[in-house]
């Protein structure tokens, strides 16, 4: 029997193992610690490595280092640790080193309320580090989706040579649900594109058809240079605009060209729905509950659940906003993704339903907003 009762955090750990994660470096922090505990136990069994570093800065650094060495790598943290990781998220984006950063969100700001739930780090996941950079952030709504999106996170990370952030919230991280462990061999696993040119020809940051240059691992005979400075196709520092501009364009393009692959969402609406609820993470659970209740009351309400938070699902929201009059955005924060929804909502009215006190938004609050039309 493979059906188990499992916490979201554990499912993240199993998803990582299924995706081929073989390195974890982290620093404990509530409510993410179960991810570390689980992997400290399981990684050695598959020959993987687990280390607790001296802090979160070092944790993400070690992940990047290990990834350069060829191991799929992950760290997990929560708000305070996520703030500390920001410099290295930017480094990973700049150097295009795959890695997965899990942030199980707790109530902030600051130490806040460590055991309470929140979706307060949504904008931080996009903008927490300095400078313009592309990023992918995924956000599961259930235990089994925590597994699935962890696998996706690794796959996107390797496929696009980019850091990927997996944003859980404390509700999903600590919730237990039925989980049917899939056969790992049946799971689609994407590995980084290896290079097939001889070492002399290899350009770690060269142009490529896909905009994602192949990545060689240190120790595999391709000696090259990695730097957080702007660099040329060989990885060497450059101050030339004719090398900087193409880099900037390419790393943004590699994400933008692939929005169809990256932007995951679930939709259940049609153009007759004058009200549509847009949500993600634990709030999506409340939203669905509320939408079902509303439909029982014969209200025509649509629903979009964003699984990919960043890049923002502009296209579907804009499309929906052409017909919907009101867009309801429930969030466990003071209104973060709602800002993006407002940006692309055109003339539709955006109604925010917020809680930033550690509790879930209730279905009733969402229902009230739906009915308030």
């Amino acid at each position: 029997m493979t059906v188990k009762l499992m916490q979201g955090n554990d499912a993240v750990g199993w998803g990582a193992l299924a995706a081929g994660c073989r390195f974890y470096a982290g620093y404990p922090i509530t409510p993410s610690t179960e991810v570390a505990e689980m992997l400290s136990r399981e990684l050695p069994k598959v020959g993987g490595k687990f280390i607790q570093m001296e802090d979160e800065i070092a944790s993400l650094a070690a992940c990047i280092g290990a990834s350069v060495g060829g191991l799929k790598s992950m760290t997990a943290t929560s708000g305070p640790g996520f703030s500390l990781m920001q410099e290295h998220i930017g480094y990973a984006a700049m150097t295009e080193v795959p890695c997965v950063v899990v942030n199980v969100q707790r109530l902030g700001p600051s130490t806040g309320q460590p055991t309470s739930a929140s979706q307060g780090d949504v904008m931080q996941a996009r903008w927490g580090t300095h400078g313009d950079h592309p990023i992918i952030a995924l956000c599961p709504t259930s235990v089994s989706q925590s597994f699935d999106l962890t696998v996706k996170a690794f796959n996107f990370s390797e496929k696009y040579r980019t850091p990927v952030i997996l944003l859980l919230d404390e509700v999903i991280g600590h919730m237990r649900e039925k989980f049917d462990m899939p056969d790992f061999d049946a799971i689609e696993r994407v590995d980084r594109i290896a290079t097939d040119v001889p070492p002399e020809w290899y350009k770690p940051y060269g142009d490529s058809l896909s905009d994602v240059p192949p990545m060689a691992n240190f120790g595999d005979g391709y000696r090259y240079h990695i730097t957080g400075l702007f660099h040329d196709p060989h990885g060497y520092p450059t101050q030339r605009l004719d090398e900087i501009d193409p880099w900037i364009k390419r790393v943004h393009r590699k994400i933008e060209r692939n929005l169809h692959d990256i932007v995951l969402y679930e939709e259940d609406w049609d153009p007759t729905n004058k009200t549509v609820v847009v949500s993600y993470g634990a709030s999506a659970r409340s939203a669905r509950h509320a939408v079902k209740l509303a439909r029982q009351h014969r209200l025509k309400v649509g629903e979009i659940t964003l699984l990919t938070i960043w890049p923002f699902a502009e296209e579907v929201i804009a499309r929906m906003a052409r017909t919907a009059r009101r867009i309801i955005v429930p969030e466990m924060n003071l209104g973060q993704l709602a800002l993006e929804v407002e940006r692309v909502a055109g003339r539709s009215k955006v109604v925010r339903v917020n809680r930033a006190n550690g509790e879930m938004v209730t279905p009733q609050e969402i229902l009230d907003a739906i009915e308030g039309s």
Partner: protein
Amino acid sequence: MTKTIQNDRTEIRLAGEGGQGMILAAIILAEAAAIYDGKNVTQTQVYGPEARGGASKAEVVISNGQIDHPEVINADVLVAMSQEACDKYAGNLKKGGLLIVDEEKVGRIPSNKAVKIPITQLAEARTGRTITANVVALGVLVGLTDVVSRMSIEKAVLARAPKGTEDMNRTALLAGFEAADMVKR
């Protein structure tokens, strides 16, 4: 008590002090429902400051269908193992919901329909250990509500019982069933 299951969704809250094992009880109940009864289930809890503190409440939602909102909205069943827990959560009980209290620990009871059972005392008397009170509570709860089958909860309890404590835990569970049957009668 199956009429408390509305919209095919049963909401159960187990509340008490840290150390009484209420989270574990909720997990066992959830496992009984999910693994042995094949239902859908969500199990959540509230922790004290950081991970170290004990939980003050644990929740289980059980359904044959999909469970959306994962937390208890209005409990169908509340098991209160302390006065504070009873005070704090009884008000949230659904109309006609079931309140089970540990008779010794909860003096002021806000409902005269509450089922009062000396759970901890029973645990001590039947197993010699008060720490089995959470399992006795599970017995009472399942005995009264059939939210999961008795066989499933027994399997779930035994699967979680540390080696050598299986008998003690089975005894505790049966004590709960018996107490429930007494009430029903």
